[in-house]
C-alpha cells in the first residue's frame, strides 16, 4: 500500500470496531467480590514478595507484598478484610503462581488507607519514580510493564517527547476512551508528574479519530499553564503499539531491537497516566482499574471500576452471560488471550473482558495452502513478509527466520492472521518460533 497519509504508520488493518456498544456508558463501580485473589506476579519482572501472613487483617490500600528488586512492583490490598490463605493460584498463562486470598469484611466502609504523598513541586526525579513504583503502577494498556522502569531515561539519552497513548486500537475496548472522558484532571495531573520524571520537553496525547469527543473534551479541560498537544490520528490497527504511535505522531521509526527512548520518546498509556495523577498526590497504591466488559455474550455490557483480584467468574456472574457463551478473552479480541479457566482474577493489566457466543467465535476453518496473495505483506506494520516467515516456520527454519527475516521484530499484533484468506495461523507460528529462538539463545549462553 502506498502511504499518502503522513499522520500514520505504514500498512495496518481496519477490523470492525464494535466500540459503540460501550463507549457511551459511564464508568461504574463494580461490587466487591466476597473474596479477592491476588496473584503476586501481575507484571513483567520479578514477582512481588509477600509480607502478610494468613489470618492477618488488612485495610484497603495496605501493602500485601513488596517489590522484589528494581524490576518489580508492590501489591496493595484492594479491600479491607482478612487474609484467608496464601496458596498457588492459576493465571491466564496457565502457569500457577502464589496468590493471596483476601476475604472482604462485609460491612466495612472500605475506606482507603492514605500513604505519604509525593509532592509534585519539591520531589526529585528519583523520588517521583520511586513513588510510581511504590504505588504498584504498571502499564495498564495490557503489557503490565513496570512504569517506573519505562520512565527511567538511561544515562546519555534524553527524553524529548512524552507521548500519552490514548489510541486504544483494539476492537470492543472503551476503557481508555471513558478514562479520557471522565478523568481529565487526573490525566493532566499525571502528565505533570511524568514531565518531572522524564524531563520531557514536549507532551503529545495521541487519540484515534473514533474518539473525537474525548479529544475535544481534553482540549477543553487542558490547564492553561500546561503545554500539551492533543493530536487526533486516523483510525488504524495496531496504532496503539508504541512503535506505530511514535511513527504516526512524530514520523520517526524506532530502530529495530531498540526502545522508544532511542528516538527521544517515552510512551505512557493514558489510563496509567490518570492512575499516576490520582494516586501519587495521596501516596496511595493501585487497588482498582477500569475494565470494559463487553462482547455479544455479555448481558450488562459496560465500563466498570473493578477491584484488582476480583475473580473472573464473579465478574461474569454479576454482568450475566448468554446461554451460548463460547469464548472469554482477557484483553481485546486481536491480542487478548482466550481464558481456559474462569478462576483467574482481574489483574493490573486487564483492560477488557470480551465474551463471544458460539456465533462469533472462530470456527474450525479449513487451512488452505498459502497462495502468495500478499495480503499479509500489505498488513504487517513492521513491514515483514509473513508469508515467507510462515513457510519457513513450517520447515522449522527458526534461525533463518530470526537472522534473515527479522522474526524478532514481530510484536504479534495478529494483522497477518486477520487478513490471511487461507486461514493460516501465522502469528501463532511466529509466537512459537520466537519462543524457540529465545530458548536456543539462552541455552547457548548457559552452555
Amino acid at each position, binding site marked *: *500500500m502506498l502511504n499518502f497519509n503522513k499522520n500514520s504508520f*505504514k500498512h495496518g488493518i481496519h*477490523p470492525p470496531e464494535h466500540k459503540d456498544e460501550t463507549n457511551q456508558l459511564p464508568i461504574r463501580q463494580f461490587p466487591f467480590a466476597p473474596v479477592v485473589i491476588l496473584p503476586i506476579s501481575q507484571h513483567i519482572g520479578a514477582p512481588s514478595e509477600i509480607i502478610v501472613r494468613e489470618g492477618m487483617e488488612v485495610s484497603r490500600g495496605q501493602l500485601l507484598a513488596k517489590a522484589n528488586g528494581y524490576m518489580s512492583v508492590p501489591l496493595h490490598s484492594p479491600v479491607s478484610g482478612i487474609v484467608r490463605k496464601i496458596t498457588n493460584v492459576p493465571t491466564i498463562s496457565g502457569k500457577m503462581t502464589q496468590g493471596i486470598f483476601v476475604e472482604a469484611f462485609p460491612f466495612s466502609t472500605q475506606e482507603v488507607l492514605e500513604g505519604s504523598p509525593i509532592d509534585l513541586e519539591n520531589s526529585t526525579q528519583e523520588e517521583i519514580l520511586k513513588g510510581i513504583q511504590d504505588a504498584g503502577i504498571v502499564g495498564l494498556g495490557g503489557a503490565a510493564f513496570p512504569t517506573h522502569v519505562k520512565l527511567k531515561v538511561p544515562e546519555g539519552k534524553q527524553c524529548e517527547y512524552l507521548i500519552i497513548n490514548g489510541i486504544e486500537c483494539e*476492537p470492543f475496548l472503551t476503557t481508555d476512551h471513558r478514562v479520557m472522558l471522565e478523568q481529565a484532571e487526573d490525566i493532566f495531573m499525571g502528565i505533570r508528574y511524568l514531565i518531572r520524571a522524564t524531563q520531557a520537553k514536549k507532551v503529545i496525547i495521541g487519540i484515534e479519530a473514533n474518539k473525537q469527543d474525548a479529544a475535544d473534551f481534553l482540549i477543553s479541560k487542558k490547564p492553561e499553564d500546561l503545554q500539551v498537544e492533543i493530536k487526533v490520528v486516523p483510525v488504524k490497527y495496531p496504532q496503539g503499539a508504541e*512503535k506505530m504511535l511514535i*511513527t504516526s505522531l512524530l514520523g520517526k521509526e*524506532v*530502530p*529495530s531491537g531498540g526502545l522508544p527512548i532511542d528516538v527521544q520518546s517515552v510512551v505512557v498509556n493514558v489510563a496509567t497516566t490518570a492512575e499516576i495523577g490520582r494516586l501519587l498526590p495521596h501516596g496511595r497504591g493501585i487497588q482498582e482499574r477500569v475494565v470494559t466488559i463487553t462482547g455479544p455474550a455479555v448481558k450488562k455490557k459496560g465500563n466498570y471500576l473493578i477491584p484488582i483480584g476480583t475473580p473472573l*467468574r464473579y465478574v*461474569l*456472574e454479576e454482568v*450475566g*452471560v*448468554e*446461554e451460548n*457463551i*463460547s*469464548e*472469554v*478473552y482477557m484483553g481485546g*479480541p*486481536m*491480542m*487478548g*488471550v*482466550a*481464558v*481456559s479457566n*474462569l478462576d483467574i482474577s482481574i489483574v493490573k493489566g486487564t483492560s477488557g473482558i*470480551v465474551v463471544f457466543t*458460539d456465533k462469533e*467465535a472462530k470456527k474450525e*476453518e*479449513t487451512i*488452505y*495452502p*498459502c*497462495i*502468495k496473495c*500478499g495480503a499479509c*505483506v500489505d498488513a504487517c506494520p*513492521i*513491514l*515483514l*513478509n509473513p508469508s*515467507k516467515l510462515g513457510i519457513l516456520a513450517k520447515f522449522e527454519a527458526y534461525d533463518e527466520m530470526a537472522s*534473515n527475516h*527479522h522474526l524478532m*521484530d514481530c510484536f*504479534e499484533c*495478529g*494483522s497477518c492472521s*486477520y487478513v490471511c*484468506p*487461507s*486461514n493460516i*495461523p501465522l*502469528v*501463532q507460528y511466529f509466537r512459537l518460533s520466537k519462543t524457540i529462538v529465545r530458548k536456543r539463545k539462552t541455552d547457548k549462553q548457559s552452555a
Partner: protein
Amino acid sequence: MLEKEKLTSNQHNMLNKTLHISTSPHLKKGVSTNTIMKNVVLALMPAVLFSIYSFGINALLIVLTAVISCVISEHILCYISSKKSTISDWSAVITGVLLGLILPPAFPLWMVFFGGMIAIALGKFVFGGLGNNVFNPALVGRAVLQAAFPVAITTWFPSFSPTRFQEVSSSVLTLPFMEPVFDGISGATPLSAFKFDHVFASNFDLIFGNIPGSTGETSAIFIALGGIYLISRNMMNWRIPFTLLLTVFLFSGILFLINDQLYPPPTFMLFSGGLMLGAFFMASDMVGSPITSLGVIIYSVFIGVLVVIIRVWGGLPEGVMYAILLANALSPQIDKLVKTRVYGTVKEKVKS
C-alpha cells in the same frame, strides 16, 4: 430473593460450560481462499458467455471439457497420493476455465481433456498442489498442447458463424488419438494476419471480439469487465494488469512512433491476441507472481516487454503464453532480490 437465586444458579450453570479456546487474533476478515477462487470463476463468466455467444456450442463444449478434465484429474491425483481431495478450493475449476478459453474454437475435445490432465498433473500437482506451483497450470497445459498438436492449435474457426448454435464442428468431436479434420476454416487471427500478411484489424473489432481467435480471448471488453470486478473486490493485484498493459502500450507506442509502417499501432497490440486475458487472469495469478509491490512491477514490466519482443521480432505471432511462463519462473528470484525495508532498519543491501 428467590428470583435472584434462581438467576444466579442459572448463570452458574452457564459458566460451568466448557469454554472454547483459540489463539489470538480472535477476529477474522472473513475472505477465504475458496471465496477468492469462486469470485475468479465468476469474473471469468462474461468472457465465457461471450465465447459461447461468438463460437457457439464448440466453445461451450471446450470449456466444459477442460473444467471436467481438470477437476477429475485433481480428484484422482489426490486420491492416488492419499491426500484429502482439494477440488473444493475451486482452483482446479479456474485452471479448467482458463485452459478452455485459450484454446482455438475448433480444437478436438480429446486434446482438451489431455491438456487439462497435463495442466493439473504437470502444472500444479508435481509441485505440491495449490500455492506451490511455479507456473500457471493452464498455460503449462497449453504449452504442452502447442508442442504436441501444432496444427490443431493454430487452426482457427470463424467467429459468429451462422450455424454455430446448431452444429458442432466435426474436428471438435474427433475420436481420441485421431488426427482431426478441419472444415470451414477461416483465415488467420489478427496477430498472424499482422505478422505474416501485415494487415491490421480495426480497434472496434478487437475490443468487441469480432475476430477469429482462441475461444475466450477475442473480446477485450468482457475480459476487462471481469478483471475490474476482481480488482474492485480487492481480490486481484491491480498493479499487474495495469503495469503490464501500460508497458505493452508504451513499448509498442515507441516502436510505432519510430516507424508506423513497420510496427502496429499500440492499441492493436493491446487488444489483440491473449494479452487481455493473460494480463487480467494469468499474469495476475497470485501464486505465480511476486509478493511485494515492487516485485510485482518488475514482473509485469518483464512480461510486457517480452510480449512485444516476441510479437514483433519473434517467429510466433503470439507471445503472451511464453512471456508469462518465463516470468513465473523468475518470480521466486524477484522475491528474493527485492527485499523490502523492515520497520526501524536502514535499507538492506541486496543479498543474492
